[in-house]
């Protein structure tokens, strides 16, 4: 009888150790899941999903704090890919976080109006704006992800969003 109890206690402790160890490993698994989710996000770093960038949003999804329909730039395609990865039914993008654009937009600076205050350069998450203080700025259309973070800080409101073809033609 005593022996049976002893064995049961031994099994209990071993199981506890196993669970404790797996708890540690969940952190490592969380980090891997974040990495995988981040690979599937469009990397616009626009913050429309209420997080500062794509990586924080991915980490939130991995922790389960954020849903998979908060990324308008990614559109329904990204939502479906995330649904596949996480084994959930696909959902359309939630309009509260912004409208899904049919055509990607890029920022465009009306150069004559630009006073060279470098506020937009600091705001741009992907360094797509070139210029120095008191010198004219311009947007490198190829690198702009259309996150619109530069439009607000501009004191003279000389930045607007345009389609890629309009920018190429102007």
């Amino acid at each position, binding site marked *: 009888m005593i022996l049976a109890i002893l064995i049961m206690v031994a099994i209990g402790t071993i199981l506890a150790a196993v669970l404790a160890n797996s708890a540690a490993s969940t952190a490592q698994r969380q980090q891997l899941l974040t990495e995988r989710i981040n690979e599937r996000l*469009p*990397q616009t770093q626009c913050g429309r999903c209420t997080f500062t*960038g794509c990586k924080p949003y991915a980490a939130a999804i991995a922790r389960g704090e954020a849903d998979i329909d908060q990324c308008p730039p990614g559109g329904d395609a990204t939502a479906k890919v995330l649904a596949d990865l996480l084994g959930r039914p696909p959902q359309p993008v939630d309009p509260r976080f912004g409208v899904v654009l049919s055509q990607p937009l890029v920022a465009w600076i009306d150069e004559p109006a630009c006073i060279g205050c470098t506020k937009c350069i600091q705001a741009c998450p*992907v*360094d797509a704006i070139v210029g120095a203080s008191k010198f004219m700025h311009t947007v490198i259309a190829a*690198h702009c*992800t259309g996150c619109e973070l530069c439009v607000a800080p501009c004191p003279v409101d000389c930045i607007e969003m345009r389609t890629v073809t309009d920018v190429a033609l102007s």
Partner: protein
Amino acid sequence: MTPALHGGLRLPGNKQRSTQKPLRLIPAPDQVVLPLDQHAGAPAVATVRVGDRVLRGQLIARAESEISASLHASVAGTVLAIEPRAVPYHRNGPSTCIVIDNDGSDATASVAAVDHAALDPRALCEYIGNGGIVGLGGAAFPTAPKLRRGQQNDGPHLILNGAECEPWISCDDMLMREHAQQILRGAIILCHALQAARCTVVIEDDKPVAESAMRAAQAELHDERIVIQSVPTIYPAGGENQIITVVTGLEVPASGLPSDIGVLCHNVGTAAAVARWLDNGEPLIRRIVTVTGSGVTEPGNLEVWLGTPMSQLVDHSGGYSGSIARLLMGGSMMGLALPSDDLPVVKASNCLVAALPADLHLRGMEMPCIRCGNCSEACPVMLLPQQLHWFARSNDFAALESLGLMDCIECGCCDYVCPSQIPLAQQFRQAKPALVERLTSKQQASLARQRYESRDQRLERIEAERQAKLAEKRKAMTQNNHPGG
């Protein structure tokens, strides 16, 4: 025996009726329409303005970027307009064209003949570009940039493609029968431009008359670098990659170019155009077009000034007879069904088929794919069209990319043999840009991520330096207040 092509089809040639009569040069029309983007690559930039008076053969548009071709006036007269017009090839919407009103004088800009030996290969290649010469096999790829890339490897093997494997088309056949010397002159010039070690002229074995004419011309020339080779008539052996594999047994690398394996392929028509440009000083302003199909009473091969409306070609071939099912530019396998016949002849128009329903066998009701495998057996690129069809239906781009959608040459062999009559080539043609768009957006996303992460690191570094400087200053401050304390 040359190594057989994988798959491919033995199709009825339908070329007898169009090769009975000799070549005829038809008079220039009252008005020519010359599109600026009638070649692969960037459109040419017009150098004339509305109202200018131009001579035949005068440069009217220059090639600005690396892959582009210049354009010359095919008639003498005044520039009527430079405006968008309907064109006989896929560009979403009309293209800008130069319209020239023919004053009937046929005054030609005199250009001195040039001896190719006098020029070094690089200058010769430049000069060929000035003649507006493009590939006349149907792809209309500018010849100069192609030669420049070919010059990089030493002693490439030049292949002159006279295979012309597509049904109905016989313009190369007639060209070889009547202008064999001109083609070989062009071959010598191209060999000099490329410093080519060998040149093989490839002709399918269903063109005996053309082959004997070419062999006779080659015998006179006794230039041992040039060889005439006959290959079995299998569609699509005339494709660039396919003809290279049939002749050399090598395969053009999927992400590379023929010049990567020391081979260069040009159409026999291109060689003739090069010879005409250097010897007679005539740029590419006219070309041979086969006008055939049972919807035309007198089919044949006409030498046509570029920009002539297609309707004039039919009028010079005895006009329409019977209700035309399709007016095709090109053959029945890869030809483009033209919506109307007042579209201009362009550098790529090698054939015009006024087809009665009996000439073609249009697709019936599309049935679901039963995976019978006829298409994967017929595919010259050894793809699995039934799998590509299956994954294209569900837009599974990862699978499409790994199955090799980008290697499809849209030859239509899979459509031809499909019992369910599925428009496979069309489906792949539409899926390709979607796949390319997907790949580029994924590439841009990773690029944006790298820029985001490097910016983060930069900001952290700046912040760390600032903290370090602050800490130093604070330490220095504490030292001055109570030194040695």
